[in-house]
């Protein structure tokens, strides 16, 4: 009995202490960034044309990449959520891979496929398309690295739709495609939006694949993360300012998603249950 009480108390204390250590581990570096940046410096950096250029490039490329992820990711998510076929396991692993391979490796692999000397290089150049050292290359790198987040989230969303809704649609003689578009897609929408958010955040922060595949040139391929890396050896204040800006953007995005009840790692809600805002 006594032993049980001790275990309970000890367990609680250990949990709190370890959780506190983790909290500090994540919070301290971010606090360090905030302390490094002065409000004056922030404004000054925002007026620098190089910083503006990088911010604009990051914003446009990451948004375009997110839209592309949505368009090419949804069919794959629907396929994986609704059908069983040979090789599905392999396809699922393939779709998750970019999430876990080192970005530099991804960039190198992209070069081997879409670079000038890559597998598709001569085909692409026959159509006048070059990807390395171009903004299109930046977008391709971002799509490659971030599409798993969209596919994963949307697949989970589709899979969580209760079969009875689909059966009901079927009894009303709705076609498969119609059911998908009018029943399944709306019900999975919260997951898809959450996936989009993660996808965008990942694209915005993409560094390794970009610098390896697309190079590093102001105006065309130097996104904010690349600029931060460069500024680390030139102007630490500017590097800190840009870093803080990226952190704030990510924090705002995550908070907005939480507020909307769209946490990426939140368990999928059963359709018809109360939305988070009503809790």
């Amino acid at each position, binding site marked *: 009995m006594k032993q049980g009480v001790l275990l309970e108390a000890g367990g609680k204390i250990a949990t709190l202490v370890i959780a506190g250590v983790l909290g500090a581990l994540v919070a301290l570096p971010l606090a360090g960034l905030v302390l490094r940046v002065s409000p004056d410096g922030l404004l000054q950096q925002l007026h620098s044309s190089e910083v503006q250029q990088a911010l604009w490039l990051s914003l446009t490329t990451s948004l375009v990449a997110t839209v592309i992820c949505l368009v090419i990711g949804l069919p794959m998510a629907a396929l994986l959520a609704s059908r069983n076929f040979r090789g599905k396991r392999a396809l699922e692993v393939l779709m998750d891979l970019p999430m876990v391979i080192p970005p530099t490796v991804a960039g190198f692999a992209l070069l081997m496929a879409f670079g000038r000397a890559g597998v598709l290089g001569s085909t692409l150049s026959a159509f006048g398309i070059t990807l390395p050292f171009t903004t299109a290359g930046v977008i391709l790198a971002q799509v490659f690295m971030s599409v798993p987040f969209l596919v994963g989230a949307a697949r989970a969303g589709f899979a969580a739709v209760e079969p009875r809704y689909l059966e009901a649609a079927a009894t009303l003689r709705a076609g498969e495609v119609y059911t998908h578009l009018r029943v399944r897609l709306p019900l999975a929408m919260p997951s898809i939006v959450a996936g989009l958010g993660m996808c965008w955040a990942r694209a915005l922060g993409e560094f390794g694949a970009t610098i390896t595949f697309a*190079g590093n040139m102001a105006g065309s391929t130097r996104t904010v993360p690349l600029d931060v890396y460069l500024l680390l050896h030139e102007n630490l204040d500017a590097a800190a300012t840009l870093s803080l800006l990226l952190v704030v953007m990510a924090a705002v995005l995550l908070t907005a998603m939480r507020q909307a009840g769209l946490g990426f790692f939140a368990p999928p809600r059963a359709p018809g249950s109360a939305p988070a805002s009503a809790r």
Partner: protein
Amino acid sequence: MQTHNRRMPRRWLIAALLTLVNLPAAAQTSLTVFAAASLTEAYGEIGKAFEQRHPGTTVKFNFAGSQVLATQIEQGAKADVFASADTRWMKYAEEKSLISGTAAIFARNQLVVVVPKTNPGQINRLQDLARPGIKLVLAGRQVPAGAYAREALNRLKGAPGFPKAYDQLVLTNLVSEEENVRAVAAKVQLREADAGIVYQTDVTSNLRPQVTLIQIPDPYNPIAEYPVATVKGGQDELGAAFVALVLAPEGQAILRARAFLPPAATP
């Protein structure tokens, strides 16, 4: 069954803790050398020679752009020796009092233009670098090799047979500024770039068969000076021994074999 379940994790925990405790005991003396990316092969060999002379000592290397290394040391990275590809970043380190003792020049290096063997940009002489539309890759301005390359272009402008705006024309063709000189060589080796400017010594036996070289004539070719020094707060004695080996005939022979030029005779 339940007691069994509860005990298992505890046993793992103890094993994990024991491993952690054991780790530092397993390490032997080690010397950490921060060296410019262009020194990768030569210093690797000097490191092996050092280990042979100091049994029980392992030499660990951190190869990167000199500007990266200088900033890392400034931010408190643990290093015993710092070898830079130019005097600028060594001066930087000296000014921030990161260096103990004085830096010694141990080698010099020169630049060369590298073009893929397949020559996709049809570049056969230095003037071709100014032709619109070619893809040139250089190291960034902060990287010593990048600064030297820009210096060479600057010296070539208006030289006999070169246009007045040669440097600007060439820099218009710049498609990427790499973070170290080896990344420039890689982009040429991968045939993504039509041309790059690297050190003579970057044309390693691995790269040589895949590229064509275009020499930059002497008066226009800046000479890179490589200083080495021990780092403040590091292992002074062991660090100094490494620096001594770099400057000794044995170290110099290794550098010479890798196409580094000897340090200028002291005046």
